[in-house]
């Protein structure tokens, strides 16, 4: 009863990652199919109507829809098969995707290689266990963004935002421009987690206060949100009694982080890391051979340009896999990468091939902000490479291309972010 489709590379998700992966693989001659759940391509970029995209990749500043449109226009010149309005409901380890859509029913897509590009979802009020009532008017920032920027509806009129990530800051400005009142942005961390430009242009320009080290400790209202209580928190994020402030509002937006969305990956038995993204090797290949991952489904990026570059690598690697291109001999045991001092996670999580010396791209995030740092790459208890970083902040991913020599590398590679004491002293 189901329709069988044969392809070289099947890509789950038609957002920025899926688009770039598809273009790159198709350019090399692969037959490619994209399966996208929305009615159009572009993914979350279609609702990110603000500018600031493309400075790295296109060397010019674009809005989200413009960034997506460029890839969509290029895709029109290819023969990539596109399945819109199509939901993947299963993925097997032997790379058969089961998807469904209203027009064609159930599709069985048999692929030589699969690229996961499903993106991420927003962390919710429930996930961070904010207490209170559960009335209408509680949204994640991204849902509010979709309602305003794509559906033309206002989620509310008087708004409190929790979380100073870029989406929260940008939504504060959007709400103001659409006639709402944004009372306050509260951030549990002692620093603003979004870009300073967004702080200035989205909050400061509109006189919206940002309270650092604050969180929501109660939401009141039976039918609709009536007020929220914001309290100062101590260093363990515990609310401090006596610091409560009441804000009368009808809407609360949560902008408290993103989580790679890998429920489909689990169906194929793919192992996930603490990031909730798949653990991958240096080819961005998951624990299931021939299934690759890129973009926010692998790790949450702060710049879409890096998503594109990562996805192009995934496209290239998936193409090589689909044409049985040799990677040389696989190591008997993978070399594991280990997050060391002030490092939250590392992609890739393992190196599977290291016959000759080669360059591997590492991306990782610091756990806490710091200045004047030295980033050490350590193996066999020796620092085999190091880089300087003037400023580090958890919301900015660090990306380095590092040459690995087999004779220097042992069972593990540890990355540490250390204070450059000399430099710090100089500045002091």
């Amino acid at each position, binding site marked *: 009863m189901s329709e069988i489709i044969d392809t070289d590379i099947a890509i789950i998700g038609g957002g920025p990652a899926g688009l770039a992966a598809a273009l790159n693989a198709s350019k090399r001659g692969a037959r490619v199919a994209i399966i996208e759940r929305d*009615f159009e391509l572009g993914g979350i970029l279609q609702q990110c109507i603000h500018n600031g995209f493309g400075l790295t990749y296109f060397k010019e500043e674009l809005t989200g829809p413009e960034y997506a449109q460029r890839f969509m226009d290029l895709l029109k010149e290819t023969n990539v098969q596109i399945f819109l309005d199509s939901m993947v409901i299963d993925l097997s380890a032997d790379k058969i995707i089961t998807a469904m859509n209203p027009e064609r029913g159930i599709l069985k897509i048999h692929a030589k290689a699969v690229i996961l590009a499903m993106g991420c979802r927003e962390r919710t009020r429930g*996930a961070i266990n904010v207490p*209170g*009532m*559960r009335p*209408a008017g509680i949204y*994640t920032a991204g*849902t509010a963004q979709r309602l305003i920027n794509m559906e033309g509806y206002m989620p509310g009129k008087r708004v409190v935002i929790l979380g100073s990530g870029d989406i929260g800051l940008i939504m504060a400005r959007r709400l103001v421009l659409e006639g709402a009142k944004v009372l306050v942005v509260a951030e549990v961390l002692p620093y603003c987690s979004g870009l300073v430009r967004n702080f200035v242009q989205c909050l400061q320009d509109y006189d919206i206060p940002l309270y650092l080290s604050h969180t929501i400790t109660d939401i009141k209202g039976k*039918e609709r949100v009536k007020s929220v209580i914001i309290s100062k928190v101590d260093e363990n994020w515990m609310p401090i009694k006596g610091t409560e402030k009441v804000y009368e509002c*009808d809407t609360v937006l949560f902008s408290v982080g993103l989580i790679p969305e890998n429920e489909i990956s689990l169906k194929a038995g793919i192992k996930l890391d603490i990031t909730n993204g798949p653990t991958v090797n240096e080819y961005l290949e998951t624990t299931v051979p021939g299934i690759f991952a890129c973009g926010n489904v692998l790790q949450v990026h702060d710049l879409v340009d890096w998503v594109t570059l990562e996805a192009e690598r995934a496209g290239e690697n998936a193409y090589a896999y689909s044409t049985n291109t040799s990677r040389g001999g696989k190591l008997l045991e993978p070399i594991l990468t280990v997050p060391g001092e002030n490092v939250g996670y590392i992609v890739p999580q393992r190196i599977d091939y290291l016959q000759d010396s080669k360059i591997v791209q590492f991306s990782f995030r610091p756990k806490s902000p710091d200045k004047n740092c030295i980033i050490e790459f350590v193996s066999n208890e020796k620092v085999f490479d190091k880089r300087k970083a003037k400023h580090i902040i958890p919301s900015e991913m660090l990306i380095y291309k590092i040459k690995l020599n087999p004779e220097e590398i042992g069972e593990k590679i540890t990355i540490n972010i250390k204070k450059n004491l000399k430099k710090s002293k100089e500045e002091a």
Partner: protein
Amino acid sequence: MMKPYDIAIIGGGVIGCSIARWVSKYRLKTILIEKHADVATETTKGNSAIIHAGYASSEGSLQSEMNVKGNPMFDQLQKEINFDFKRVGSFVVAFNDEDMKDLQKEQNQADKRNIPSEIITDIKRIKIMEPNIADNVKAVLYAPSAGIIWPFGLTIGLAENAYDNGVDLLFSSPVTEIQQKSNGFIIQAGQKQLNAKVIINAAGVYADEIARMVGADNFTITPRKGEYILMDRNAIPVNHILFPIPTPVSKGILVCPTIEGHTFIGPNSNAQNDKEDVSTTSAGLNEIIRGGRKLLPSIPLRKAIANFAGLRAVSDRDGDFIIEASEVENFINVAGICSPGLSSCLAIADLVTDIVKNHTTLSFGEKDSWNPIRFPQQRLKDMNEDTLAQAIKNRPEWGRVICRCETVTEAEIIDAIHRPIGATTLDMIKVRLRPRMGRCNGGFCTPKLLKILSRELDKLVTEIPKNDEGSEMVTDRTKFIENKPWKGETP
């Protein structure tokens, strides 16, 4: 004035709906009156969703009698009205010698009531049955007949079947006044005035206030709040309902699988005066986390989906159920139905039917046409690939997944809107099909659901509420776009 009702049931929780379905067998003109837009919106909504084995309630109480009688009734009803229910079995977990005494006491009670149970002391076996249970477990009391249930499915199923068998349902109509007349009662419910010969008061935490309207309030109800945290699917495998040793006021903070494959921890138990306050608190959430960790130390809190609270309706008669013909003729109180109320609901319906038979002049002739089978809603999760492919061919909406977390299609949502108790709100969709109940908290599907409801009900998107009036989700259009019902194919 229209012909009076024989029976008016006040309260559309699981108790009111069970009674409605039970009396629908008879040639009686019955109406169920509910304050909110849907059934199962208060106490039935926020509880542990457990069908208890029945050994726990104190000897001689109505609670114990109803639970013991009610537990076995669910299998037959499940066949008739089709709801999710599974006897997964429960553990009461003992950690020390003191606990062992309590375990023995509970087992003695189980034996006395002919409830199958077993004290397991073989740690290896316990660990095989429940791999993530705390390492310091000493023994468990295993009761295989305890089950987990989807309370919404049960209650909606009962109400729909009652409706199909001729019971009238009146929603969004709080009862504000009851006048006693010589031949019955005049009830003011919302904008409507109704006449009824017999009133069954199943108004949950408000049962004392309803009874007071006719002077049948020889009891008071105090809400006891219980807070919960719900964890995602695959967060941690839990196979059984895990209870600590009970305290005098509650069964304690438990860890429990849900029928949909999630895990919850909770509830705590705090008395309050407010009958509407279902807010969670930092202190409460911390309390249940601590409690849950005693049973299952590795609870992955970062897999939390939601926290919520519910109110138990606790009577001042030792906390026991009050199920009786009141001093006021033809006014039956079914009050103080706290735990194990859900487990007892079917037995309570049976008992209430008998009370009405014995204490009123209504004649209980059976309907020839009574149909115990509820026409179930077709669900994606029950289909295989071939039937789904065929369904999509016949109706393309079967091919469009609206809720990605719980895999719910547009066809299912449209059907839920047009069923007997048709969904008109986001919460009504949620409790029928689960969109907005999953890990994204509705982040992805909410705009789509609003549009589908707008189209199917021919209402403005700005008029679609979360639940009751005043809970509309979006306030306005942007850019002065003309506000009219959404009409489109791809939400």
